[in-house]
C-alpha cells in the first residue's frame, strides 16, 4: 500500500520548488467511488492528495492538455515544470509521449507509484449501485479490498473488482520517475488478457458480428479520445472537414470507421491503461482492440510501447524488411 503521508510529503517538497508550476495528483471525488484529479499549486493544496485502488484515472493527459495562451509581446514563456503522480501504465504513457516529442522529460517531475492494480469502476458500481456517499477503499495483504460504505465494511476478493487490464499488466512499476513511493512491486507471470482468449479460434464473421453489435451502440461522444493520454493531435482526424474522413452521422458505418481508425492510431502506442474503455458510456470493449494490436505489434515487430524514452516510435522505424504478410 502506498504511504499517503510519504506521497503528500514528497508532493509538498516538489510543489514548493521554484521551478515547479503545479503538481497533479488524486483527491477524493464528490460522490461514490469516483476520485478526481487534484491540481496543487501550493503545499496547502497538496493536503487533499490521496492514493487508493480507486485512483484509476491516467493523469498523463494533463500536461498535454494544458492550454498555452498567446503571450503578450515581451512576455516570457512559462518554463516551469509540471509534477505528476503516475502508476506503471501512466508512466509508460509519459515515456511514449516523450518518444513522440509531445513532452520533454526535463519539463516533468514524476512521482512514481508501484501499482498493485486498480479497481474497475464499472465492476464496483455494479456491485454497489447508486452509491452517492464518499467511499473509502483499501487493499489488505490478503489480496482483498476493504470497502467502507457508511458504517458497513465489505471485504471483497481483489480478483472480483480488479480491472481486466491490470490482470494482464506486465509493467506495474513506473519505467520513468523521479521519486518512487515505496518499494517496487514484484512482477509475476501474467495471464493473457481476458478479451483475447479464444480469439484465434473465433471465425472472422463471428468477430465482425461481435464488433458490429458494439459499434452500433457508440454515440460518438469521443470520451475515449479525451481520456486517452496518447490521443493528443492538435486536430483529430475525426474533426476534420476537408477531407472529411468520418461523417458526423452516428451510424454503424461511421462508428466503425471511427473506432477502427482510433485503434490503428494507437497501434504500437497504446500503453494499456484502459482509460478509453472505462470512460465509454456505451460499454464498448475498446481494450480488446488495443490489446489485439499490442499483441500483433509485439509478435511482428518485437516492439513494446512506452518503455524507453530514447527508443524510436514504432511508426517511426521504417525498415524495408518489416513483415508484410498482410499485403495481399
Amino acid at each position, binding site marked *: 500500500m502506498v504511504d499517503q503521508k510519504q506521497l503528500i510529503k514528497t508532493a509538498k517538497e516538489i510543489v514548493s520548488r521554484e521551478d515547479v508550476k503545479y503538481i497533479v495528483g488524486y483527491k477524493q471525488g464528490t460522490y461514490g467511488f469516483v476520485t478526481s484529479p487534484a491540481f496543487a499549486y501550493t503545499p496547502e493544496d497538496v493536503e487533499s492528495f490521496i492514493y487508493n485502488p480507486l485512483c484509476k484515472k491516467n493523469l498523463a493527459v494533463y500536461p498535454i492538455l494544458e492550454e*498555452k*495562451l*498567446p*503571450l*503578450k509581446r515581451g*512576455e516570457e*514563456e512559462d518554463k516551469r515544470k509540471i509534477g505528476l503522480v503516475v502508476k506503471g501504465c501512466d508512466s509508460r504513457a509519459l515515456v511514449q509521449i516523450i518518444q*513522440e*516529442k*509531445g513532452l520533454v522529460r526535463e519539463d516533468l517531475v514524476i512521482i512514481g507509484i508501484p501499482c498493485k492494480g486498480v479497481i474497475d469502476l464499472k465492476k464496483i458500481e455494479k456491485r454497489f449501485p447508486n452509491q452517492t456517499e464518499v467511499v473509502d477503499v483499501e487493499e489488505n495483504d490478503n489480496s482483498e479490498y476493504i470497502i467502507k460504505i457508511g458504517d458497513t465494511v465489505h471485504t471483497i476478493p481483489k480478483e472480483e473488482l480488479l480491472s481486466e487490464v491490470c490482470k494482464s499488466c506486465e509493467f506495474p512499476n513506473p519505467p520513468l520517475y523521479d521519486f518512487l513511493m515505496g518499494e517496487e512491486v514484484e512482477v509475476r507471470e501474467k495471464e493473457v488478457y481476458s478479451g483475447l482468449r479464444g480469439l484465434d479460434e473465433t471465425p472472422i464473421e463471428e468477430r465482425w458480428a461481435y464488433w458490429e453489435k458494439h459499434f452500433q451502440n457508440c454515440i460518438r461522444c469521443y470520451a475515449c479520445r479525451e481520456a486517452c493520454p496518447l490521443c*493528443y*493531435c*492538435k*486536430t*483529430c*482526424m475525426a474533426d*476534420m472537414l*476537408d*477531407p472529411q*474522413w468520418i461523417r458526423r452521422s452516428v451510424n454503424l458505418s461511421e462508428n466503425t470507421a471511427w473506432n477502427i481508425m482510433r485503434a490503428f*492510431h494507437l497501434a504500437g502506442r497504446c500503453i494499456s491503461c484502459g482509460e478509453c474503455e472505462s470512460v465509454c458510456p456505451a460499454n464498448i470493449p475498446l481494450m480488446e482492440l488495443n490489446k489485439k494490436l499490442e499483441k500483433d505489434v509485439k509478435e511482428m515487430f518485437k516492439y513494446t510501447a512506452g518503455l524507453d524514452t530514447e527508443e*524510436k*516510435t514504432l*511508426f*517511426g*522505424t*521504417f525498415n*524495408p524488411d518489416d513483415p508484410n504478410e498482410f499485403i495481399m
Partner: protein
Amino acid sequence: MKIGVYICECGSNIAGTVDTEKVAQSAEPLPKVAVSRVYRYACSEPGQNLITQDIEELGLDRVIVAACSPSMHEPTFRALLREKGLNPYLLEMVNIREQCSWVHSDKDQATDKAISLLTSAILRNTLMKPLTPKKVGVINKALVIGGGIAGIQSALDLAEVGYQTYLVEKTPSIGGKMAQLDKTFPTLDCSACILSPKMVDVGRHPNITLLANSEVIEVDGYVGNFNVKIRKKATYVDPVKCTLCDECVPVCPVIVHDEYNADLSPRRAIYIPFPQAVPATYIIDEEACLGIDPLICAKCRDVCGPDAIDFDMKPEIIEEEFGAIIVATGYEPYPIENIGEYGYGTIHNVISGLEFERIISASGPTDGVVRRPSDGKVPKTVVFIHCAGSRDPAKHLPYCSKVCCMYSTKHALQYRHLVHDGTAVNFYIDIRTAGKDFEEFYQRAAEEDGVIYIKGKVSELIEDGDQVLVRGVNTLTSETVEMHADLVVLATGLIPSEGTRQIAKMLKLPVDSTGFIREAHPKLKPVDTVISGVFLAGTASGPKDIPETVSHASGAASRASTILAQKELEIEATIANVNEILCRGCGMCVDSCPYSAIELVAKNSFGHTIKVASVNEALCKGCGTCSATCLNGAINHLGYTDSQILAQIQALGGK
C-alpha cells in the same frame, strides 16, 4: 476548368481487350469533361497534334490520357502541356494497358475496369492544383566508389569529358579483381597487360583525384549536391619520398598471407600490393605491423634511405561535394566453405577458381608453374567443377554467375597448355557461351586442346591419400562417374562484395533478393539507381564479364555526365508538404523517412516555441511514407493529396 480525355488504343494492345469507344463515352457526362476521344496511338505525332488542336480550339486546361504506364509516356504528354503553356502537373495518365488490357482477358470486365480507373482519375484531376518544380544548382564533380576495372573506366571517361573526378578505393591499390587474373577469356589477353595502362592513366590524369586506402563513410545530400565524407587511412609511408627500392621488405619481421595471391604466398607487414600497383608506393599493414610504434620495432624505418616511413601518420577525413556518384563496388567470390559436400578447407587438394588463377599466373606464387598448394606437386589430373554454389536455389545461390563456364574453360585450357600430359576434366550443368567468340573458345578447348567435358554434377569429394575421389553422375549416359583427381578447382559464383552491401545501405539503394543493387529499370535504365544522381558500374548490380563491365562503366559515366553538364536541375514537384497547423511535431515522419528528407524545426507560435516538420524539397522523393505515417494527416503529398485520393476511392467504390 475544361478537361480533355483521350483514350489510346495502342494498336490492339489496348483496343483488343478494352472497348475504347465505350470507355470514351463513359467520360462524357462527367463534370468538367469538355471532350472525350479515342485515338489509335496517342503518343504518335498525329495523336499529340489532336490534343494540341483541342487545347487551342476548345480551350482545354487539363488533359487525361488513358494509355500505358506513366513511366512510359508521362514525360511526352507533360512536355506537350508545357509547350501549350499549361501546367504539366495537370496531366493525368491512366494506365489501361499494363493495369488493364494486358492483365485481363474478359473484354467486358476489362472495359468496366478501364471505366472505373478513368472515372477515378477524372475526379482526382478536378482537385489537382498546378505545381511548380523547384530548381537546385549542380556541383560539377563526380565521385566514383571502387577502383576495379569498372571504377577505373568510369573515372577515366568522366575525366576525359572534363569533370573533376574522385576515385575512392578501399584497398591500397586500384585494379580490383581484374588485377588478380592471369589471362582473360576468350582472347587469352594478359589481364595485367591490358589493365595496367588504364591504371597508369588514372594515376596521371589531371582531372582524377585518386584516394586509395580510403573509404566512403557518410553520404548526405541529393542529386547535384551530395556531401560525402571519406576516410583516408594512414599508409605510414610517404608516397612522394618512397623510391620503391624494396630495402624495407626483407628486414620486416612480420610475415602474413598475401591477399593478392589469394593467400597462397607470404608477404611482410610493409609491402607493395603488386608490382603494377597504382598508387605505386609501399604501405604498412596496420593490423599486421608490430604496433606502428618505433619503440617496439622500427626496422623498416632504420633501413629506409629517403626517410619515407612516418609512424605518426594519421588517418584523414576528407569532406567533398559531388554532383553525381558512381557505385563500382564490385563482387566477391561466393564463400565455398559453405558447400559442405565439396569439403573446401578440409580436403587438401580442393581449391577455388581464384586460387587456381593465381597458381597459373606467371606473377603468381609458383611463378607460373602449375603446382598444387598442398605439396607443390604438379597435378596430372585436374577436375573443374562448374556452378559450385551457383544455380542451386535450395541451398546456395539461385542465379547463374555468367562468367564461371568461361573462366573454367579458360583454366582447363591454360592448364593443358602448361602441363602437356595432364588431364583436364570439366563437370558442368550447361555450358553457357553467350558472348562474342565464347562458343568458339569452348569448341577450341574441347576439340583442339583436349579438355574433357562431362555433363553432370559432382555429388561429393572425398580425400583419398594425396588425391581426391570425385563422385558424380554423367547425365548424358546416366552412368555414375568416379575418378581420382590430383587437384579439384571449384568454379565459384559471384556475390555482392562487402563494399557493395555497405554502400547500398549507406545510400539507401534497394537491392535484389540476391543482394546486388537494383537498377532503376532492368532494361531501359540499367546503370541508373532509384536515387537520382547515383549510378551503377560493373558487378555491383550483378555478375558481368570484363567487356560488359567496361561498357556498363562507360554507360554510367555517360549517364552521370547528363547531370554534371547541367547548371541547375529541376526537382520533382510531387513531394511531401507539411500543414503546420495540424502538425504536432512528434517527428514520426522524420524517423520513417527513408531519404532523411524531413527534420523538425522550431517555430514561434504566439510566443511559445513549437516544433513542426519541415521537408527538404531537394531530398524528398515523394514516396509518401511520411503521409502514411502521420496520424492526423498533417503531411500531404502534392499531386496525391488526401482529398484527391479520397475522390478516387469514391469513384472506384461508387457503382
